């Protein structure tokens, strides 16, 4: 019967407290700590390999941006250099918030909105001389002007 339950039905069962039958064993605090310590070896290894990957990213070659791009921003026209806002580095996420995208015109794409909701307070990035911005596609001339998010 459980195998025929839809995703939504399963979700409702979980909310009512019906956990699946194949969960891990319940153990003592000592055994739990031992299990955590055992997995911690892999956790640390994962952290170190993530650091090593980031170190390789820092040695990636750079690509010169030769074209002159133009964006429409809160203060009017802006070049790619303007997007840095005086800082050393720039991070640009491309969001879909335009005609033809699910949710338009009230919303940006659900996935892009979900992503935007994850972004931490930018003061911390800015403290490392970085600036994060989002850009979106060109609104169709026939569409009503999108409200600025």
């Amino acid at each position, binding site marked *: 019967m459980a195998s025929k339950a839809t995703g939504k039905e399963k979700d409702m069962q979980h909310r009512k407290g019906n956990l699946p039958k194949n969960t891990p064993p319940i153990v003592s605090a000592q055994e739990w700590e031992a299990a955590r310590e055992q997995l911690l070896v892999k956790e640390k290894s994962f952290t170190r390999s993530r650091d090593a990957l980031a170190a390789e990213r820092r040695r990636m070659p750079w*690509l010169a*941006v030769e074209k002159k791009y133009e964006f429409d921003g809160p203060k009017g026209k802006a070049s790619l250099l303007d997007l840095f806002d005086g800082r050393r580095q720039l991070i640009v996420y491309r969001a879909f918030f335009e005609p033809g995208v699910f949710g338009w015109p009230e919303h940006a794409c659900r996935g892009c909105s979900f992503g*935007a909701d994850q972004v931490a307070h930018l003061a911390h990035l800015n403290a490392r001389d970085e600036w994060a911005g989002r850009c979106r596609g060109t609104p169709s001339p026939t569409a009503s002007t999108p409200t600025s998010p």
Partner: protein
Amino acid sequence: MGWEMPWYTITDSFDTDFAVNEWHGTNAFIHDGDKVFRTYFINSRGDEAMGSTWNYLDITALGRQEEWEDSPENYPQTAPYKWWNWHDAYAADASVDPGWNKVVDNAKVTLNLND
């Protein structure tokens, strides 16, 4: 939607040129005077992991800019933890606070930080 980051509208081939014309993605850039360079690009599930300060810093050319990092020589680096501040205090309190410095130094000993 309550988002605080600045938004810009693409007016040209920026999306096509930087591989974000059909699907989401995050590009990282650096500039040297008027010259702009693309330093990294991440998309798909890699892009989904973005959002935290650390994950963003880890895709940039300069990294977290902390002393423990394996970066090319002479890259800007400062002590970890000590550059942290309250999000509304960075500008007003640009110099390193000796009180916070002490908290970090003590924590390094007692909590095995940097691990």
